[in-house]
């Protein structure tokens, strides 16, 4: 197995075979997670620190659980509350934590590129848990794992990604990953929620939901990130739901066995119909959560193998 990265900062730097490696490994952790005894010991004695500079419950919980199942000592720092408010810079915070000799930092930050910046200043492995509008690699990996398990493959699929592409790091990481694995990616949403230059990403772009979903194997809904809106991207929630909210009627354009995904947390009645979200025949939203823990364990696994021996071990 080859995985020559010290950090997991984004999908952009990964090769297709590395992605496959991660997913293979994650499959094994899915199995482990379904057993009564859920522990692996690869990270025993290692320290994992979660630094979330942006509010998150689900992702942070997922990383915390993944770390604990891998045997690490896990600490979650409430970054919003503490030092940032006291004016400490990101790099100083990183250096402070680095001095505590963590082995793994899991970082989420509201600014694009901030996690990469931090990774340059520390000695340990860093996992990007989402940076601004840039990347959210473990989300794309868990989505890929879900698709692969449901569809039996991760290539030559038509995947429609719908909603607020412009503000979404989930969309960027997914576009990159699905592209690397040779799938057909369609982006669906109002033009105000499409990033500039998107046509050059090797994707199809449409503003019409029916056309976008036509023949799709996978329908990936994005959260309408209201907290990111400067205001005025869409006229109203109800018009958005009417045109882009996923319901059974719109889903009829997709393949009969198309699966519906959502990174959560959902806005029921804004981007997705509540009944559809709960339809266990179509919706894989709960499965995505399970895959999330497994994928994060796999990511920790490959990074742990590349962790440098600590000074005490070198001396021994």
């Amino acid at each position, binding site marked *: 197995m080859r995985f020559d990265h010290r950090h997991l900062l984004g999908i952009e730097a990964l090769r297709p075979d590395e992605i496959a490696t991660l997913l293979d490994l994650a499959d094994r952790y899915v199995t482990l997670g379904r057993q009564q005894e859920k522990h692996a010991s690869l990270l025993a004695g290692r320290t994992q620190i979660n630094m979330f500079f942006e509010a998150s419950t689900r992702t942070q919980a997922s990383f915390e659980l993944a770390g604990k199942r891998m045997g690490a000592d896990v600490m979650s720092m409430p970054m919003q509350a503490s030092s940032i408010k006291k004016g400490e810079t990101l790099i100083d915070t990183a250096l402070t934590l680095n001095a505590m000799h963590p082995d793994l930092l899991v970082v989420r930050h509201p*600014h*694009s590129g901030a996690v*990469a910046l931090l990774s340059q200043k520390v000695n340990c492995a860093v996992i990007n848990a989402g940076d601004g509008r840039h990347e959210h690699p473990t989300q794309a990996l868990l989505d890929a794992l879900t698709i692969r398990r449901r569809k039996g493959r991760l290539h030559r699929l038509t995947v429609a990604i719908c909603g607020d592409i412009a503000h979404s790091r989930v969309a960027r990481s997914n576009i990159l990953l699905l592209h690397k694995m040779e799938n057909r990616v369609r982006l669906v949403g109002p033009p105000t929620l499409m990033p500039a230059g998107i046509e050059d990403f090797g994707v199809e772009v449409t503003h019409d939901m029916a056309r976008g979903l036509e023949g799709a194997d996978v329908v990936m809904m994005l959260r309408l990130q209201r907290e990111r809106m400067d205001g005025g991207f869409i006229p109203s929630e109800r018009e958005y739901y009417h045109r882009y909210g996923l319901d059974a009627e719109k889903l009829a354009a997709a393949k009969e066995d198309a699966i519906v995904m959502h990174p959560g947390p959902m806005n029921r009645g804004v981007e997705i119909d509540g009944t559809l979200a709960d339809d266990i025949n179509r919706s894989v939203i709960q499965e995505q959560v399970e895959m999330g823990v497994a994928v994060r364990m796999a990511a920790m696994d490959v990074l742990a193998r590349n962790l440098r021996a600590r000074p005490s071990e070198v001396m021994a």
Partner: protein
Amino acid sequence: MTPTELRVTPTLITDARLIDPEADTIREGAVLIERGAIAEVFDTPEPDIPTDRVPSEARRDARGRFLAPGIVDIGVKVCEPGERHKESYKTAGDAAAAGGVTTIVTRPDTDPAIDTPETLEFIRRRAREVARVHVLPMAALTKGREGREMTEIGFLMDAGAVAFTDCDRVVTDTKVLSRAMTYAAGLGALIVSHPQEPGLSRGAAATSGKFASLRGLPTVSPMAERMGLDRDIALVEMTGARLHADQITAARALPSLQRAKRNGFDVTAGTSMHHLTLNELDVADYRTFFKVKPPLRSEDDRQAIIDAVKTGLIDTVSSMHTPQDEESKRLPFEEAASGAVGLETMLPVLLRLYHSEELPLPALFRALSLNPARRLGLDTGRLAAGAPADLVLFDADKPFILDRFKLRSKSKNTPFDGARLQGKVLATYVAGSPVFEAD
């Protein structure tokens, strides 16, 4: 405006290749300097001048290197008052001298802003005391650069302000701007604007396009530059003010500029060394030393801007020298400060365009020296008898690798750290006195 005492002994620079932006030529020749001015320009490399007129120790053999009028750099930020740890008049002057810049035209976006005759007098005194090159200050157009009330334009002109600008803070209230421009027009004052539609460019850190979208950076369309320029040109038509747009960096803005000039409006435009030599992709993995304002553009834009400098549509090129300390750059890209230092590096960096045969040297020095001097009503920027002896002697070919820690500026925020460059300043003369000599 003379920073150094006039040198009484003459100097003769022989065997030089003279870059004459007025005549648009390069020719072999010699230059005689007397009393701080160019006394005579010879068309022969070794003119026959008796040693009782110019003693042999006052002769300098240029060995076929280039001699050009010194650079007049409009829009230099010296961080006095307020942030002297980033750049002082001493260090800015040293950096300028080492870069062949003989006149720096300073920005008023200091803390506090240069918006009263008293603060202007303070920096003029500081400059006189410690700077080796000519320093001409610009003053703020509105008090505190807040875009609400015009400054004392008349008093500031009397105190030596050569132009009025709120720098990168666009005056959003068009009524305020129109009145300031009307008042300035009555005094013949030059307004330097930052063409940008501030609503559209709010919060932006990059130019919209594939690259910025991949990086997830907040962006602005280059169209915002054209909108800003269009508004400012309309105000020129309305008020009769004299306008210089500080940086035109987008191809989309060029037709507006061309139209304004064709219609005979008193409008000129500049661009920056960075927009001529770098594009948006240079930001790569969020390298904050490449964050400038306006943000770096596409390669197509860069090519169009080079072409506009070549044809003269864009009049001036400047360094937009903006010192920033390490702390303000060691931040996530969106939060990091904008700007780069350039006084010392501008000439070697721009010589890239000469080596790539995109811009001939006379056209380069027309934009670096002649046009900015003309726009400010200065006699310098020319290689002709009677002009001030503000000169730069340089070797256009000498290769070197730039080490940012060797820069004379207090701040080391150059995007060209580690870059392979060709071209070195050998000597800089201000009013006939050597203010810089290469080792």
